[in-house]
């Protein structure tokens, strides 16, 4: 089977984990768990959460890496350690400082208290021009956009001005793989 457009392989927004702005990280993770349980229609698990505003418009995405980053020591600490670089401290020294800061930060067993205090909007990735794609766009355009956009693990799919779905790299890869298999392997 061949795919021709983005809308054929995207995950509809309704099937995606969404939380309203103002939610905390724990609520976001629970929302993700829920969709993972409800939509086991393919072998790829959902990995991200979409953040919506009061008008149900999408304002950002929260990935697994964003959640982990939120649990890291505060950015001020990061900046302080990074600034040591300009003063000529060695890479090993800075690595060690980061490690010490991490050890002094929240242990895993205390995470439940931490994640319920952190707001999704403080850690989400806001939308950028390069990560929006029209639902009628071809698979080739989607691949090009992901590759040029470098770290984009997913694109938000629009119908007119409305975001209607999420195009994940894992689904794009699967589509490419199936297409390649169809043209190389003899049909039964």
């Amino acid at each position: 089977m061949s795919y021709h457009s983005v809308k054929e392989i995207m995950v509809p927004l309704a099937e995606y984990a969404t939380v309203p702005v103002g939610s905390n990280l724990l609520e976001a993770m629970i929302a993700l768990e829920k969709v993972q349980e409800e939509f086991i229609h393919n072998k790829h698990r959902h990995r991200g959460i979409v953040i919506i505003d009061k008008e149900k418009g999408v304002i950002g995405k929260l990935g697994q890496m964003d959640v982990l980053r939120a649990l890291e020591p505060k950015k001020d600490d990061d900046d302080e350690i990074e600034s040591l670089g300009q003063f000529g401290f060695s890479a090993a020294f800075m690595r060690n400082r980061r490690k010490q800061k991490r050890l002094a930060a929240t242990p895993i067993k205390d995470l439940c208290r931490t994640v319920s205090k952190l707001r999704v909007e403080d850690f989400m990735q806001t939308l950028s021009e390069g990560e929006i794609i029209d639902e009628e766009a071809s698979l080739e355009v989607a691949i090009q956009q992901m590759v040029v956009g470098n770290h984009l693990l997913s694109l938000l799919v629009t119908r007119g001005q409305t975001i209607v779905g999420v195009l994940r790299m894992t689904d794009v890869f699967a589509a490419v793989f199936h297409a390649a298999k169809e043209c190389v392997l003899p049909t039964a």
Partner: protein
Amino acid sequence: MKELTTLLDRIGQRANINLRDLDFDVLPQIKKLVPLDQMVKFYAFYGITPHHPLDFHFRHSSLAGSYFLGKCRVVNSILYKSDIRGDELKQEGDVFRYKDFEIPILMDEGIEIEDSFLIKTLVHNFSHDPKTLERFFIKDTVSAHYANIHGSPCDGCFLGPLATVDLTTMHDSIIGAFSYVQAGEIAHLNIGPGIVWIRSPGEFNFLYRHPLHKLDDYVSFSAGRTPQGFIVDFVEDRKESFQKIFDVVNIATSVPVPSSASLDRYAVIKPKTQIGENVLVAQRAYLQNASLGKGSNAQENCYIVNSRLAGNNVTAHGAKIIESEMEPNVFVGFNSFLRGRPDCRLTIGKDSIVLPHTIIDIRKPLAVPPEHFVWGLINNQADLASNSMAFSDFSKIDGELVQGGLVFEGQGARFVTAFRERINHILAANGAFFDGTANRGHAQRNQRISFNTIQPYPDGDQEGLYPTIVIQP
């Protein structure tokens, strides 16, 4: 005053071009720092001695209230109450040692100030850069009140108030208020306020950050305002005393001065002050009820009030010592501010080293033990515990130390040795070890200095600027 205004704009623009990568605008910082009408109020002056070269060249510059000694060239610049002290410059025939190199000095070194604006700044020592041994240049640079440019050629830089750059060649960089940098060579760095950074690549790296919320009480600086804070107030409160000594031509020494000591006629000496043998008191030092034991010194912009220095004490440029006891061989670094109170005095133990830009300001008696480093901002015993360490313990560091606001990497023993060697060199250079015949230093060589004054155009387009002046033997 038209020319002077144009000159100030030109200097700001040139500094801005150098600092464009750091997105820093010098002009708002300097516009209101010194009203230009001040530039006609004060004469400039220079020293003549048989011990130092006499070679001055001033062109298209304003030099109000500034002092020159040695070999200096000032072009297209504004110097306001600055000291350009060329008594440690290299001389023809000297040999400069750098790593495995021995580099002969082919001509007398000179301080060359071009397209720069220096406010109440001290320029001293000599170029430590092996690439520019005969030229100690300061170019396209702006420095605010009480900055120190010590053995540090500068090109395209801004130094905030009470900032010090020491033995470091500096290009296109900013040093924030009350920051101290001794790092060999730096370029394109924006160093914020309250940083104390001492680095010798391959040996050690010392970095302390003053807590800014506390430092602001002592020194703060923002564009369009003159520097603020306790330290600035302390100095400004004593400004009038200096005015009096600058207003008279001949001034009698108010205290006995031993024949081996030197008391500059532009120092302020208040009652109950005692000067020991081999003591050096530089111009713009302020002594009040101060006892300076044998071999001690008070350098430019130092204030010693109701305090006793037991002997061989170095009080580096800009340091203030109030209501304190300094035991023998104590070193107080650049711009440090040590303030005890009449009922709770501060004591610094024998041989201890107060690192540059340290603030100790106490409300209860405090004693720093002998043979300790002290750094940072200290208000009580708990602060002292986290901001000091015995030399013996510091020498054991081989790797890393993080303690309070300090981060250190390298060999502590090298850090200890480097400081001790430098202090010994300073004492020797100042003449602390003079024995009547040998080991002469500044205390002996600077005893008899003649001062000549020079004046600017009093009016017209060139008001505040000095005519081109060349002074040679």
